[in-house]
């Protein structure tokens, strides 16, 4: 009965503050739409400059290959200096340069190099651009060889099969990972702020002198936010599946169980932050720095964990989102792969016990 009263009070507090509701519903929608439609690592229509110093059939057919490609937006320049100037001013991302001796070398049977210059500032995009240029070049080589009656010598050819995401669409892995970030925000940031406010205003002490036991106090605080977080999660899953057409190949109940587990860990961390911080400025900063940014950068959501230095990999083991992102990407794209799901859930369970014990002990101390 006392517990119900506490839950009721907390729920009212959530419902009355537009900012809590917007974190739980507006932010997920904004984020999912931004990531679903706005963000893509798949380069499209890369602007490249083509410089042909001595036009003839060979250079024309090569330029034509780039013009027909769905990956490039070619611009023609008369001199390499103009093209370099354009690269410098960020109008184009790359240059293909066929020097004046290109065709004569080709006819004479000598090597005819195409000069390629790529703006490398965004190294990932530069790699992708380089890959597309190579692909277009190889396709042209084999067509060119065919048109002259022989085939391109190609000792080993690569046949690629990509499992789980055959079209390599980045949306399919960004959207599931995003659910971990959304739940981190609801669980840790929102909870940390709310409880820190109670400390700041002194209402936490007021609650402590009521007949509520510490367990009831914690449960009363956590249950409404747990419900809010799970609703936000279900809402995000529905959007992911129906709006963004991300396949859910694993089972829904397993997704629910692992999400509930992660939500509890996030809530416990939020509680702990508020107890340590005791004021909203510190709680807000800590929540962003300890939970949100690591969930973004150290969870494998965007950056590959295996490629990080050893000591950073050790740190990622302390980030709960790391385990949840692995579960999400597996459940959505691969299916119920038990070894992956169980080992990551086990890690989350250990974190849950650890953080709850800490919260429990810290709360007790303040009662004395």
């Amino acid at each position, binding site marked *: 009965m006392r517990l119900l009263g506490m839950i009721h009070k907390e729920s009212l507090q959530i419902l009355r503050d537009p900012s809590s509701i917007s*974190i739980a519903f507006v*932010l997920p929608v*904004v984020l999912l739409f*931004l990531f679903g439609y706005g*963000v*893509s690592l798949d*380069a*499209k229509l890369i602007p490249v400059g083509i410089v042909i110093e001595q036009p003839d059939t060979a250079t024309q057919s090569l330029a034509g290959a780039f013009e027909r490609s769905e990956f490039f937006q070619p611009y023609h320049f008369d001199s390499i200096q103009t093209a370099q100037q354009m690269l410098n001013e*960020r109008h184009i991302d790359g240059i293909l340069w066929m020097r004046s001796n290109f065709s004569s070398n080709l006819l004479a049977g*000598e*090597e*005819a*190099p195409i*000069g*390629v*210059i*790529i*703006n*490398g*500032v965004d*190294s*990932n995009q*530069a790699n*992708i651009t*380089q*890959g597309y240029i190579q692909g277009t070049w190889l396709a042209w080589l084999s067509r060119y060889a065919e048109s002259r009656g022989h085939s391109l*010598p*190609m*000792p*080993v050819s*690569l046949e*690629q*099969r990509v*499992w*789980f*995401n055959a079209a*390599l*669409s980045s949306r399919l*892995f960004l959207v599931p990972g995003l659910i971990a970030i959304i739940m981190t925000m609801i669980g840790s*940031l929102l909870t940390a702020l*709310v409880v820190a*406010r109670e400390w700041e205003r002194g209402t936490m002490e007021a609650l402590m002198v009521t007949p509520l036991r510490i367990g009831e106090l914690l449960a009363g605080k956590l249950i409404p936010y747990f419900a809010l977080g799970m609703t936000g999660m279900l809402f995000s899953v529905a959007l992911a599946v129906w709006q963004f057409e991300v396949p859910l190949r694993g089972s829904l109940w397993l997704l629910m169980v692992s999400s509930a587990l992660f939500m509890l860990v996030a809530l416990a961390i939020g509680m702990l932050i508020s107890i340590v911080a005791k004021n*909203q*400025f*510190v709680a*807000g*900063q*800590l929540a*962003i*720095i300890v939970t949100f940014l690591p969930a973004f*950068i150290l969870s*494998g959501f965007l950056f*590959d964990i295996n490629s990080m230095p050893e000591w950073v990999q050790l*740190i990622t083991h302390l980030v709960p989102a790391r385990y949840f992102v*692995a579960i999400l*990407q*597996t459940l959505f794209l*691969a299916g119920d*792969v038990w*070894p992956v799901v169980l080992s990551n859930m086990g890690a989350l369970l250990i974190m849950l016990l650890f953080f709850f014990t800490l919260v429990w002990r810290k709360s007790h101390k303040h009662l004395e």
Partner: protein
Amino acid sequence: MTCFRYILALAIKEFLALLRDKRSRMVIIGPPIAQLLIFGFAATYDLNNVPVVIFDEDRGVAARELVSRIDGSPNFQVVTTISHDSEIAPLIDNKEALLVLHIGQNFSADLMQGRTAPLQAILDGRNSNTAMIAMNYLRTILLDYNRSWLESQGRSGPLVTLQTRTWYNENLQSRWFIIPGIVGLLTLVVTLLVTALSVAREREAGTFDQLLVTPLRPTEILIGKAIPGIVIGLLQATLIIVLMVLFFNIPLRGSIGALYLGIVLFLLSAVGIGLMISAIAATQQQAVLGAFLFLVPSVILSGFATPIANMPQLVQWLTYLNPLRYFLVVVRGVTLEGDGYALLMNQYWPMAIIGVASLAFAGWLFRNRMY
């Protein structure tokens, strides 16, 4: 003259409110540095030691030569070899291998007879970007392998070749791209939170009404509230830039003046937006959440991790409202591309407009939102 004294007094009071608390001091200085160090090392798209499994049914010399080339690359690491089809699925499913290379029975025979020998690559596509990068590495190794195979057979490869050079980030290290971005990211986070909470804190405590009835004019309150954010942002940005250059060895090729002009304009817009959020919010909680609602989309739509050019047109227009978008071009332009004032002009004026407009709006809100 009195007006300066008022503003100064208010700015000092703001600094005290912020720095009086030991924990507040800590969160302004400590975490951003820790983050720069951790994220600076963590945030990279470059792959090393991608776990590879070899399924070699050929076992010829040519196949072994190819495998040793792959194992020798710093990007790949052969973790195990398998001898049966059915072993592939569990290895990929359980994330023990990102890439399985299947070399068919006739691989060496095909090569010897001058036929094209297929090499099958099976990839875990759960993280499509990682899969694509691994694929690109593999292609480069194969191109090399093909050329040297043809040479060893006394035949020449294709006459038309690619001679690729990359500018500005010659070795294509993604760290060079990400770390200058972190300068913008961390500066924005701290500045925005410092300013977003400044008015909301007083509203919640009820002291903002007292401030409004002092001889200070709203513009003076605005300036007094803006100064701490700008000063803290400037110090923080400087600290991060020093660490970036000395610790991560990112080059600083352009003009430092051009960089600082960018920082000041960026801080102006960040402070303006922070004060706007603060003026709208009734409580500190709303201010922090409001700052967050701005922060997250603005990081995503800034080109920090994913290129703006890949976004749909509508979203690209939205990014023009985002000061971080312009600032990232400035930081990367000055550090990597060696830009000066002239090349960055198109980044300066939008930040200036956003800054002035948001500050003006925040000032208007100070006067007209009283409850």
